[in-house]
């Protein structure tokens, strides 16, 4: 795949995309840029802002729960804060996270393209994302007060509450539109813009995961869009879609919500799995084990993910037949996931393993995500779920998958690709310290939730009975360690931007195309579109 070395040195002055002179200057050179790398960075900055707010809200939730009764806020405030924490984290960080930041930045580079297929639509996606996020935040300060429905917007509560549901829901609608356009863009780019010789089975696995994700974004997101609009119509016009006193059906909302939101769980996790599939070969310095199995299992997850939404409704009053069928189908999603885990750990076998910070994130991803996945099996089994549904067991499971999974994959990808994106190296010792703190904080924060849930502590409770306090105290202490870890990471990476050493083109010894162009990349990535003649993970071998 070598190509940069064939370009005569000095033929063009090498400038990075940061130094590119466009039509506009200053901030406008960013917010009106159609360059996929600039858009990736725009997403990164906006997303980290929302993430920071949502993380602080999470710490406030934990602080309130350190003792029964009122600790720092009133019940209504608590209900609004946990809703906002969920909405911001899910719709503005976990769903768009890896595709919007790393997908935008690296997808074209990894397949040898100069940009995505529709650069202007790509910019529009970011604007919609920003508008949606701002509307969600503005809704807090409007008449009626902040939304208090939980991120699931279940009716009839979401229809009855006096809080400003409509504006927040409309914000989420715009973010959904943004997600559809991003998915469409990626699918087209992967189909149309692969470099000569970049066959489907020579694509990096991150690209495969974005491909599977793109289909879910395009096919499933319109359903949440419709659902959200129906909620707004219901609130303004009282039509009677979901309100049973008007002949509507509350379960209809749950079905429609989960027909999107379950596949959306895979929108959240697949790109994370893709990033892990990039990190592990590089830091094991060997080819990935079972390339096709990992690529195909991404598609398997994307397809199976459509048929299991009912497992969120095992206690909803849905028919017994539906519950049994959905439980049966749910267990099949476990299989492609298990295949991935087995292939990842087999990639470690006879590798040359460097426990650098991206690898530590990747290995802890496997650790935490496995706990998340295996506790998912408990919840998939009907008899156990009837006990555990809507308890802290679900909250724990969910955070292990979404934060231990997607979150750790995001931070792993961030460390892995930071030198390429910003052209600077971070301090490795500080990165390891931040990772260790984050990991310990994570376990202390979320593991007690399994015990809480098993003993019957319901979720979304502002107050609780005294028998639950000891686990809540441990969990709250965990939240302090975790936030410290996040702060250490942020400081380390910001310090690297400020005064980090200049990064080489290929600091980790990676083999995919992004490592063969300068750090940070030039405006159009490649002087000349590369010709690809081998698979993505061909590492130098020991001469026999």
């Amino acid at each position, binding site marked *: 795949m070598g190509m940069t070395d064939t370009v005569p040195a000095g033929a063009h002055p090498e400038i990075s995309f940061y130094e590119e002179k466009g039509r506009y200057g200053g901030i406008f050179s960013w917010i009106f840029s159609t360059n996929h790398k600039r858009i990736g960075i725009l997403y990164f900055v906006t997303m980290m802002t929302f993430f920071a707010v949502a993380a602080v809200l999470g710490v406030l939730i934990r602080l309130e729960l350190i003792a029964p009764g009122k600790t720092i806020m009133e*019940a*209504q405030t608590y*209900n609004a804060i946990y809703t906002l924490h969920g909405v911001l984290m899910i719709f503005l960080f976990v769903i768009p996270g890896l595709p919007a930041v790393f997908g935008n930045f690296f997808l074209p580079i990894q397949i040898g393209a100069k940009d995505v297929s529709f650069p202007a639509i790509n910019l529009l996606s970011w604007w919609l994302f920003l508008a949606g996020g701002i509307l969600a935040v503005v809704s807090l300060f409007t008449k009626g007060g902040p939304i*208090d429905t939980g991120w699931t917007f*279940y009716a*009839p*509560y979401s229809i*009855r509450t*006096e809080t400003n549901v409509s504006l927040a829901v409309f914000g989420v609608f715009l973010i959904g539109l943004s997600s559809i356009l991003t998915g469409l863009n990626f699918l087209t780019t992967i189909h149309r813009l692969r470099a000569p010789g970049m066959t489907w089975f020579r694509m990096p696995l991150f690209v495969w995961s974005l491909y599977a994700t793109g289909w879910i974004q395009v096919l499933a997101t319109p359903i949440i869009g419709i659902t959200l609009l129906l909620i707004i119509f219901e609130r303004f016009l009282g039509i009677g879609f979901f309100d049973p*006193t008007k002949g509507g059906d509350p*379960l209809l909302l749950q079905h429609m919500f989960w027909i999107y939101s379950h596949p959306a769980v895979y929108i959240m996790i697949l790109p994370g799995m893709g990033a892990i599939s990039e990190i592990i070969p590089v830091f094991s310095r*060997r*080819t990935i*084990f*079972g390339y*096709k199995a990992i690529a195909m299992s991404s598609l398997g997850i994307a397809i199976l993910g459509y048929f299991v939404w009912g497992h969120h409704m095992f*206690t*909803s*009053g849905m028919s017994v037949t539906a*519950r*049994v069928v959905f*439980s*049966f189908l749910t*267990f099949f999603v*476990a*299989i492609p996931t298990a295949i991935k885990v*087995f292939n990842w*750990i087999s990639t*470690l*076998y*006879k*590798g*040359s393993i*460097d*426990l650098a910070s991206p690898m530590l994130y990747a290995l802890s991803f496997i*650790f935490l995500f*496995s*706990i998340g996945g*295996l*506790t998912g*099996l*408990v919840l*998939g*089994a*009907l*008899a*156990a779920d*009837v*006990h555990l549904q*809507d308890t802290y067991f679900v909250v724990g499971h969910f955070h292990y998958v979404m934060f231990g999974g997607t979150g750790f994959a995001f931070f792993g990808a961030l460390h892995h690709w930071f030198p390429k994106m910003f052209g600077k190296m971070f301090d490795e010792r500080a990165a390891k310290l931040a990772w260790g703190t984050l990991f310990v904080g994570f376990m202390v924060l979320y593991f007690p939730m399994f015990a809480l849930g*098993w*003993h*019957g502590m*319901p*979720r*979304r*409770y502002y*107050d609780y009975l005294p028998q639950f306090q000891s686990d809540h105290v441990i969990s709250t202490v965990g939240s302090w360690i975790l936030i410290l870890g996040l702060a250490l990471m942020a400081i380390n990476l910001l310090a690297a931007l400020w005064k980090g050493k200049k990064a080489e083109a290929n600091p980790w010894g990676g083999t995919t195309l992004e490592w063969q162009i300068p750090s940070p990349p030039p405006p159009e990535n490649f002087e000349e579109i590369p010709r690809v003649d081998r698979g993505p993970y061909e*590492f130098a*071998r020991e001469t026999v």
Partner: protein
Amino acid sequence: MFPRASSFANQVDGVFWYIVGVSLFFFVGIVAFMIYCAIKYNRKKRPFGSHIEGNVPLEIIWTLVPTLVVLTMFYYGWVGFKDERTVPKDAMVVDVTASMWSWLFEYQNGKQSEILFVPVGKPVRLNMYSQDVIHSFFVPAFRIKEDIVPEMSNYMWFKATETGVFDVFCAEYCGLRHSKMLSKVIVLSQEDFDSLYHNPKALKPEEEEEEGPPPGKALTKVHWCFSCHTTDGSTLVGPSFKGIFGAKRKVMTGDQEREITVDDGYLRKSMLEPNADIVKGTKPLMPSYKTVITEQEMDHMVDYLKTLK
């Protein structure tokens, strides 16, 4: 120790620990293998990795084995669940009414209580109704839960296996006082239960207690006003009803603060448009009763509120 107080508990715990046990086996294997590789194949010892692209027999094994394992998990979960949805014919029936934010249990002989009393060892069927939003009846000690959806008649059943007092939670988020929507199940011996059940003085619907109570009081209770408004002067969610008629109150009309005297008009308006003039210091949380209460009912309720000095 966490009680196993229903006939389902052993089965649910069995499913749970079976899945946890099998999962733990795989999890420990995965983690041990990762640690082993990280040490054995560390870059300090091996600058290069071996080129191994995959192994088809292994892929088949780790596709088939998990498939079989998860199918057993599905099966055990299903078997336990089938029992939970098959109500014995001789079950005692109790009607459960959930509303923001309280429980009401009504027995076959018309008795009512806010705490559920059941006899030990006898199957109990709960027919569950919601008056407003979705709630969920959850007894951790029994390992059961089922949502209560307005206009849907959901049901569940259980057989308590030991006497005692067990927590009841609302498990589906239902607004401001969701975490206060608690009750208890009190499991009595059959004798104790029978004597309670047949005692004319026990578990009486409250409105029968007084002689010729004003119909307004019953209506006020039926419409669940007491979930948020007390009659003893303390503030729950909304202001207390005590001495409300004729009182001077500071209210917020939009952003405008003004003082009003509570009269017929204000009381009526507060039921129909509760958030038009909100008593200062309380939150606009009350739903409108416009489509719920008739004109005549409102007359009775206003008459009743006038009597609360």
